[in-house]
């Protein structure tokens, strides 16, 4: 049995390393001869390609095709090499659970998705899928998941990125924040709100909100000071956001909390699958198919918005402030639809 000399072993190792490097570069995207040679020289220096680099590169690419079954094509119009298939160099293999997760993500982020933030995810998935051996790729195609994430619309408005960065900085540094804001009631001009900001969150319809405690608003309106308010991010006026030097207190000011109590009629409760939309939700089902629900809330405005989804199948009994909000809504709806009825009559 003979052993290769040290020089031969080193030469073989360098060749293998060079070819793997070419594959790595091509995995990033199509590349020209010059780019491939430059990548090799940058990584291997004096041990890279000899002066006749173009011929050596072609020899490496031919070897990758012949020895490892790589499919590397030359795109004449762009004068670049492109890797179509890794062949035997597809070294990524995954356990069944991960293949299932990959199928789920693949189904959730299809090619051509509208949301721009999904484009990079799709590109990442394509790269990962290309790293799988061909039999695993075939398996993946067969198990394309029927389960998928469904994303909401991103909302009608977008917040200026500078303003969003300032909001996030204030939250992280626990500092007061001031901005101009168009609330639902502001029809002619926005008002200035100084707040203690605590976090961002998103609602099912896709809008982003700032959870903050109101410290001051000018001109003053109906908002009670120290209330916890959900500020819709796209209603904050771009260019108006300022992080203030004042630090937030160690403990958040406690907004007034209400026990909310409502009854759901059998038409929405008889299947005994009433949803929990509020903290500390307790549900009691009754023999007639109705349900009584209690929960704790701090934002009565939002509570009303959420409970309105039940239409006239929900009767709120506590707190009186929420009952008053519903009465006002009912009066408004009555006025609107009484007119409609007359019109239609």
């Amino acid at each position: 049995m003979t052993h290769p000399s040290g020089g031969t072993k080193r030469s073989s190792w360098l060749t293998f390393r060079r070819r793997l490097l070419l594959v790595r570069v091509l995995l990033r995207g199509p590349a020209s001869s010059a780019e491939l040679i430059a990548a090799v020289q940058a990584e291997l220096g004096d041990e890279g390609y000899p002066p006749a680099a173009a011929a050596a590169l072609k020899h490496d690419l031919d070897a990758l095709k012949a020895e490892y079954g790589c499919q590397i094509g030359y795109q004449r119009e762009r004068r670049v090499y492109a890797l179509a298939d890794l062949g035997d160099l597809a070294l990524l293999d995954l356990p069944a659970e991960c293949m299932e997760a990959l199928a789920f993500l693949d189904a959730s982020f299809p090619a051509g998705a509208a949301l721009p933030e999904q484009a990079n995810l799709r590109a990442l998935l394509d790269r990962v899928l290309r790293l799988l051996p061909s039999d695993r790729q075939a398996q993946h195609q067969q198990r394309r998941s029927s389960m998928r994430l469904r994303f909401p619309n991103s909302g009608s408005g977008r917040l200026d990125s500078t303003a969003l960065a300032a909001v996030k900085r204030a939250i992280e540094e626990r500092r007061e924040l001031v901005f101009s804001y168009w609330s639902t009631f502001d029809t002619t001009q926005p008002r200035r709100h100084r707040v203690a900001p605590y976090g961002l969150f998103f609602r099912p319809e896709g809008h982003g909100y700032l959870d903050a405690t109101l410290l001051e608003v000018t001109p003053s309106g109906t908002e009670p000071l120290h209330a916890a308010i959900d500020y819709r991010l796209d209603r904050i006026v771009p260019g108006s956001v300022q992080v203030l030097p004042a630090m937030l207190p160690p403990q958040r000011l406690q907004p007034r909390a209400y026990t909310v109590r409502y009854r759901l009629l059998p038409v929405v409760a008889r299947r005994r699958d009433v949803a929990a939309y509020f903290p500390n939700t307790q549900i009691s089902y009754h023999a007639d198919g109705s349900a009584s629900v209690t929960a704790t809330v701090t934002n009565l405005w939002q509570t009303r918005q959420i409970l309105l989804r039940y239409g006239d199948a929900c009767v709120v009994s506590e707190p009186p402030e929420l009952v008053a909000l519903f009465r006002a809504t009912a009066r408004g709806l009555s006025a609107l639809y009484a007119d409609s009825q007359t019109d239609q009559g």
Partner: protein
Amino acid sequence: MTNQELDHTMRQRLLECWLPLAQELNERYGWGHDARTLEALLLAAAPALRQVHSAVEAHAILWYHDLVQQARQP
């Protein structure tokens, strides 16, 4: 801030802010969580939810925590 450090007000607001979205996903994907387990899911996800920049991220985080919670069930 860890979940243990969440004071009463922060816990109340965290749940109040995120429960509508969590409940929407609960119904949409048939997770079958009741009020108590949905709150537990949100409290477990709280550190990650504090970092989100988009609704897409929030969905992914809640979906992941549902998987974790389902896996921990006997």
